[in-house]
């Protein structure tokens, strides 16, 4: 049984109508941020989620930890439906902006102790303090950090504190929404080493959202690629980077800037950035796809790819 499972998860947001909508007497306009996502997170893996900005990654992440409800479908945690944040704190999220999850007016030690107390009210004051020190050490912060306020920390230290905060309840799954995007190469390397160690040594399952393909390639066991609210490819990381099946994934990999070159390796994907309001019935990537032909206008279901992969493109799977 997968540890965390998304089943046909949907999420829509109501949007203000513009003049055109009013004139056309359209009723409510909806932005479909997540559409029918099926995804099984396996115990102990690091699953990467990549995809275009605005494709629904953060929304999916918030639904996955119960911070936001789904409009349709279900999220199962250990086989049981998840409705709201897990009371025991077994599902934790690390947010992209470490500021937003920290209280500027409390010392780091006090905030972490508060979280520990929330989940383990039976602990004595001293035991709480000891637990906080243990967690700080785990994320590679010196004991004095407990006495500091968030503003006195560097970006990397702050991000480690927000990971520490997420670790307080002793989670089984960590959903990290772009935890290293704002960090320089050296601090990024520290955080990635930390996540890898937590996964290896403690068996922590990690869902890692990122747009840095080099980091994803290095860190993740499997990778899900999202486009316009849907998953379009899911593969073992090594297989994905060796031979991406979906044309969008290929474009994504080709657009990765390289420190050794002045120009990106391939031409960028042509065409418009996708419009979440004007979604096509067929392949959603077709308007920008270099391989598109008439058959792409038909709906694209997920197809099995090789041993353990899935892809939403009929051209990517050799005809049986």
């Amino acid at each position, binding site marked *: 049984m997968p540890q965390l499972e998304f089943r046909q998860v949907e999420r829509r947001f109501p949007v203000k109508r513009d003049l055109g909508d009013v004139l056309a007497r359209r009723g409510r306009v909806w932005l479909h941020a997540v559409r029918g996502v099926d995804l099984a997170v396996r115990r102990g893996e690091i699953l990467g989620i990549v995809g275009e900005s605005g494709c629904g990654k953060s929304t999916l992440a918030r639904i996955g930890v119960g911070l936001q409800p789904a409009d349709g479908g279900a999220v199962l945690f250990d086989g049981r439906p998840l409705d709201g944040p897990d009371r025991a704190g077994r599902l934790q999220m690390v947010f992209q902006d470490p500021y937003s999850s920290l209280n500027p007016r409390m010392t780091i030690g006090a905030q972490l102790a508060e979280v520990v107390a929330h989940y383990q009210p039976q602990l004595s004051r001293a035991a709480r303090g000891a637990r906080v020190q243990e967690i700080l050490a785990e994320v590679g912060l010196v004991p004095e950090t407990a006495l500091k306020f968030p503003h006195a920390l560097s970006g990397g230290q702050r991000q480690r504190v927000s990971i520490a905060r997420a670790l307080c309840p002793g989670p089984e799954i960590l959903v990290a929404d772009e935890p290293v995007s704002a960090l320089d190469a*050296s*601090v990024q390397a520290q955080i990635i080493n930390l996540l890898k160690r937590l996964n290896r040594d403690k068996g922590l399952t990690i869902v890692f959202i990122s747009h840095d393909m080099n980091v994803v390639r290095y860190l993740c066991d499997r990778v899900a690629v999202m486009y316009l609210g849907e998953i379009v490819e899911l593969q073992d990381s090594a297989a994905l980077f060796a031979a991406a099946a979906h044309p969008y994934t290929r474009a*994504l990999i080709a657009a990765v800037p390289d*420190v*050794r070159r*002045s120009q990106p390796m391939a031409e960028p994907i042509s065409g418009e*950035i996708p419009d979440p309001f004007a979604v096509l019935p067929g392949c959603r990537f077709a308007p920008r796809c270099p391989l598109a032909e008439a058959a792409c206008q038909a709906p694209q279901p997920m197809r099995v790819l090789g041993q353990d992969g899935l892809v939403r493109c009929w051209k990517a799977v050799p005809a049986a």
Partner: protein
Amino acid sequence: MSLLSIRDLRTEFQSPSGIARAVDGVSFDVEPGEIFGIVGESGCGKSATCRSILRLFGGAAARIAGGQILLDGVGDLAAMPERQLAQVRGRDAAFIFQDPLTALNPTMKVGKQIAEVILRHRKVGRAEARAAALQLLRDVQVTSPERRLEAYPHELSGGLRQRVVIAMALALRPRLIIADEPTTALDVTVQDQILRLLKERRDSLGTSIILITHDLGVVSQICDRMAVMYAGRLVETGRVREVLDAPSHPYTRALLAALPGQVGRDRALTPIEGAPPSLIAPPPGCRFAPRCAHAVARCTLGDPPPLAPRAGAAPGHLDACILDEVSDAAA
């Protein structure tokens, strides 16, 4: 003549524990039509350097303590009274903030916010400003721009918000765009598009761009020249290909070595040991010395070493390490 010439800039922040010298003697030039990249560790003063140019400190207890910021045809921005500088902002030089949320008013629709920028500097009517706002959103490739004009910032994804902020910066066709991590919140394909957009502005209108980023790949992709900053000072500068392909300062080398993609999945990445120094009481000598694998006793003496050319280096490629030769053996 350079479009922008920064000379010995010093910027300080007042903090409870003392004065933080976030920018401590920084000099560089930006030529017309040039894209100049600034990279460096978090907290090293990249944003402080660039905010100093237009004095955009957002209420922080900051002041320019010394140096000159010469903008061609305008004068020394560092010495200019606030009223006059307000005219320069947006018109001659525009700023794209690191965090799009701080640049946007959460209670105002984005269309109105873009139109306001135009109304503030140009004699046009509301309808015209709105039409211009719509066109700007199209220019930065926002789809369904009519609908997005009606959205509040929180209703947009990180990437869309940043494109709105970029649209505001492009509104008045400034000669200089200062972009503080403009693509940090974006995925690679949108990043690619935004970078192309900025590059195209440069190619068609000759706009100069200062691009702050921690992504060395981005610098490699679109910058002409670059500077590497550490603890309030520049430690290396030169043409991008020379700095990235033949880095000469130990810090630049260590930064490049920390990137994933250099090692296999089974090996740990190699961050730089230790943390950057305090900007309130920085160590003597080279500020990187406490973390530097090559440091010798004289690295920790006297003033920080200045940028200087190395024997055999390409013209304009300077670095601030006192060693004659930095071999990788020690690293």
